């Protein structure tokens, strides 16, 4: 049923720390590795060794240059499904394939009902949904629904693959609906933000903005580069001849 639940018991989601993300792509490959055999399997690759590589990924890391009056900085930006509270990707679905779970708020697709009309990907402002041209259905992040409740895994491993893989702990998982949870307190403490709040999708995931610059860092001015001297003599003449 593509009508949204009026209330979800939990609001499970991710918090991404843009301050500590180094853009290493470990979360991207861990996600691909787990999910190509998981709930939404396979994450098809098209022409993986050819000139027009394409394929389905649930998590993609962009890099931006954020320039303000204080200067410029590189911000690595992981982008995946935000498991919105009012996801239009679900309500536009004509078949009932897309749904939002009332128990934990995770947005999922029933691949057996999907007709591949792609309208949900048009309705998602964040580009979270990717069409699998090989299978003919839409695919998206499951918040590793097959890990987080998986009794076969050790308790510390019952987190999404991207969170488990992150070497700088820039990714956090938890219940954002519970103000007392560690993840909610982290958002509170660091002033976590929602993406494109003006569109009214009420995303669950939050992004922690890069911390303010520190004045404590050592300032070592590099010496100015010297202009290249024109080489003279016989060796210089050889060099110029060979360079032509």
């Amino acid at each position, binding site marked *: 049923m*593509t*009508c*949204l639940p009026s209330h979800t018991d939990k609001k499970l989601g991710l918090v991404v720390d*843009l301050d500590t993300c180094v853009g290493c792509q470990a979360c991207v490959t861990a996600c691909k590795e787990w999910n190509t055999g998981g709930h939404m399997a396979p994450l098809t690759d098209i022409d993986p060794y050819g000139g*027009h*590589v*394409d*394929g389905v*990924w649930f998590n*993609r*890391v*962009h*890099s*931006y*240059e*954020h*320039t*303000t*009056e204080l200067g410029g900085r*590189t*911000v690595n*930006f992981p982008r995946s499904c935000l498991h919105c509270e009012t996801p*239009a990707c*679900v*309500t*536009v*679905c*004509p*078949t*009932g*394939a897309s749904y939002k779970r009332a128990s934990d708020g995770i947005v999922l697709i029933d691949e057996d*009902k*999907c*007709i*591949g*009309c*792609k*309208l949900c*990907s*048009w*309705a*998602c*402002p*964040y*580009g979270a949904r*990717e*069409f699998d*041209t090989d*299978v003919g*259905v839409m695919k998206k992040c499951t918040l590793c629904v097959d890990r987080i409740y998986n009794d076969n895994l050790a308790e510390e491993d019952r987190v999404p693959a991207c969170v488990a893989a992150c070497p700088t702990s820039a990714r956090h998982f938890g219940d954002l609906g519970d103000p007392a949870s560690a993840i909610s307190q982290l958002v509170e403490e660091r002033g976590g933000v*929602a*993406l*494109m*709040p*003006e*569109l*009214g999708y009420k995303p669950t995931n939050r*992004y922690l*903005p*890069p911390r303010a610059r520190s004045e404590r860092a050592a300032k070592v001015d590099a010496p100015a580069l010297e202009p290249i001297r024109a080489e003279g003599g016989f060796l210089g003449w050889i060099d110029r001849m060979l360079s032509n």
Partner: protein
Amino acid sequence: MHPAFSVVFFTTATGAGYGLLALLGLLGGFGVIPADFWLGLVGMALALGLIAAGLLSSTGHLGRPERAWRAFSQWRSSWLSREGVASVATFIPAALFGVGWVFLGRNGGWVAVAGLLAAAGALVTTCTTGMIYASLKPIAQWHSRYTLPAYLIFAAMTGSVLGNALFQCFGAASTTVLIGGLLATLAGWGWKLATWNYNDRLEIPTTANTATGLVGGTVRSIEWPHTEENYLLKEMGFSIARKHSAKLRRVTQALAFAAPAFLLVIAFFLPWPLGVIASVLAALAQLTGMLVERWLFFAEAKHTVALYYGR
């Protein structure tokens, strides 16, 4: 947005088909156009043929067309599902009207009721098509008050210009339909100009800043997550050069509005058979022009996901 031909053709063809169906249902059902077997047969075949061809074309872009029947189930929340239900439901009164008006040569009574219901179905279906686009918030050019009326005006316009050509061909020329087609064409032209004007001045609150949550300054994409175009860029990252867009807007205006309006004025004054030729040319020019208009409707629409890629 990527202008897939299947969807461009689908919305243009069904718009004209539903416009013509509504025209025949109202004028035929209430006896304004007398029942005539060949006129009725060709007219209903044209209207229902355009609708069926459009709907088939739209299933052509599905990943799993064999499951298309599932799309009738979620009418409570989905405009696409509502469109599916309304389009199929409209075939019922349309078929009854066709039997009564074309094969039994009747009008009034139950045939008029069926014609009226077919016209209402055409109206509702066209509304649902318009709402599919108008309800999409990530595409500011579509999520505006111009989108739904555009679908209705263009359906009435192409339907009546096509109907005028049909009536002229069968010697049943109606001045009302001709003038109606002319006025609808002028209204369509005005609406399209107003829409372009609105879209060109659009100030979209969603920026690379709000998309990334980075406050202030400029956010410049320095590296994509992938080297080749992925699904998102192929489907939603389509962008058209401004000079091409300006040229295609002129082509749209010439073919969809200016030429048909001029030809309809000529048809009003010219005797048979020149009036017939002008009317048919008007319909052909307009349908071709509307394909260009619909292509531009997609090509000029910008999805917010493009912001993540610095487009």
